[in-house]
């Protein structure tokens, strides 16, 4: 178990765009609902035009969490269960109709599209992973962030967990809160902030009680609260985060 220091965070969901709004939500949480995406007006127009809703959400949270000069110097982990699958489904529908597909759209359907856009927008040339692990995506992103700290202990890691609801075609196949969102965390081996360790035990085979918000926001609620530990059970795996006192 390697504790990480959570230096900063930023989050976006419809109607919740400021730290104050998230603090109020964490104190008295309500189901996260709604639609849409932030404008991401800080991006150059050329780049912004290419951005899907997910890309705008991811970049908005990432930029808010990680200002310059650190923005160009962090390693990054981008996690998303669905990633750009909605855009892939659109292209697939075109392919099935034997239509030509747009090369620019195709190159934006890679799972690391948001990582690539962040690298360009932030002039960041550091190592970057993009990850997906179904219902374990958020805790696995934390683990992957640990692997980056292992490879380069002196460098901070920007972790962004984000998703948009799955397109109607397949939406009935997943059971999850259907809300677009991102949570960005800046973590490192050292520094100012809560020291948090994640551990993994075998689970009972059941899932934790589903809450009407994504697991990443249950984590945010925990970070903003006082409880010593947070448990998240996803099938065969029981993930627990624990605060460490210095």
């Amino acid at each position, binding site marked *: 178990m390697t504790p990480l220091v959570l230096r900063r965070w930023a989050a976006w969901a419809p109607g919740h765009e400021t730290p104050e709004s998230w603090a109020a939500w964490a104190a008295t949480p309500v189901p996260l609902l709604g639609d849409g995406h932030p404008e991401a007006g800080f991006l150059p127009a050329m780049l912004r035009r290419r951005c899907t809703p997910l890309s705008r959400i991811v970049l908005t949270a990432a930029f808010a969490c990680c200002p310059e000069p650190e923005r160009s110097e962090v390693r990054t982990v981008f996690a998303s269960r669905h990633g750009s699958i909605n855009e892939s489904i659109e292209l697939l529908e075109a392919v099935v109709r034997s239509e030509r597909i747009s090369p620019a759209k*195709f190159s934006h359907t890679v799972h*690391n599209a948001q990582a690539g856009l962040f*690298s360009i927008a932030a002039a960041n040339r550091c190592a970057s992973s993009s990850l997906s692990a179904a219902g374990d995506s958020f805790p696995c992103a934390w683990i992957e962030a640990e692997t980056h700290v292992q490879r380069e202990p002196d460098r901070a890691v920007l972790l962004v967990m984000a998703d948009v609801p799955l397109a109607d075609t*397949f939406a009935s196949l997943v059971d999850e809160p259907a809300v677009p969102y991102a949570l960005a965390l800046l973590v490192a081996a050292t520094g100012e902030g809560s020291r948090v360790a994640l551990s993994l035990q075998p689970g009972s085979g059941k899932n934790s009680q589903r809450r009407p918000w994504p697991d990443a926001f249950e984590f945010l609620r925990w970070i903003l609260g006082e409880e010593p530990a947070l448990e998240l059970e996803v099938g065969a795996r029981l993930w627990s985060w624990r605060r460490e006192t210095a």
Partner: protein
Amino acid sequence: MVNALGAGAEEVWPRLLAGDTSRLSLRADLVPDRTLLLGEVRSPLPKLPRNLARYDCRNNALALAALLQIEPAVAAARARFGSHRLGVVMGTSTSGVGDAEEAIRHQQRTGGLAPSFDYAQLEFGGIAHFIADFLAITGPAYTLSTACSSGARALASARSLLALGLCDAVIAGAADSLCRLTTNGFSALHAISQELTNPCSVNRRGLTLGEGAALFLVTSAPSGIQLLGVGESSEAHHMSAPDPSGAGAETAMRGALEDARLAPSDIAYLNLHGTGTAQNDSMECWAAARVLGGDVPMSSTKPMVGHTLGAAGAMEAGFCWLVLRASRDGLLKLPPHCWDSAQDPELPELLLVTKGQQARPSGRAVVMTNSFGFGGNNCTLVLGAATP
């Protein structure tokens, strides 16, 4: 491993050394009005167990074909360390998108979802959970998907999971499967060659796509072939084109050497990313010349198996593993660079491997493999022979 050359190390290795490009095949059913030469896997693939039918897609069948080849070693590791101490890190860029095509076709025809289709086939995380569920492993299991560097990155993370003490063994590798999305996508990008890919040649016309899977059992045992170094970079340049300066590739190669605490002269062979596009060839060859000089034998193995995209990093690490495993009397047999031998005069002078060529490393045998992906995601691995 499984790829167009065959299934399993024993079948693939002699064909790889022989420079066998005869196993690529033509398909006219993927891109409208185009016949493509492809590295399709034609070995029979295993059926998924019935209780894991939700994962049933070609991509996972390819992964299972590779997994079954190393299953005895994996089972021994599980018995020794316990199922909770094993992890899974997989790479893929396609997941089961080929099977999702069928699901969408079914939906357009009938308005309903095909009963056999499950989202676990399409989502990127599906392949890692499939491997974990197949082996009844309850350690961390996740998929890395950074386009064509996915497979290399899975090995990098596996090594870190061991170093962190989170796992005692990790099943790591990658699978990618031919499908209409990638063939039409690369075709729209004008990146696919009509003839066999011809990397580094003045006559090159682009890439040849392929499919396959390569899986490793990664442990911290000091015996066996070692993953000595990992180098990574992002390009901050373009979503589908590499930085023409090769700066990102150079950072990854230098990073891998530094991580392995080795000098450029220690590298006995470089497996090029070598896609056969003008942009990749130019930036990679110049970067390799700057980092390693002109005396290191190098080859692209993509003319034999095609570009297996998300699986390529693991596949080519697998080829490097085969090279190191066959090391005898200080000699390394190398996979040849299959091309028309008409080197692009714009490229630096390179020592491209000819059939039968061997390397004689001065010390421990060490080789390097490059993987560069869309979105500007680069990963270079350095592998070394078992210490005697």
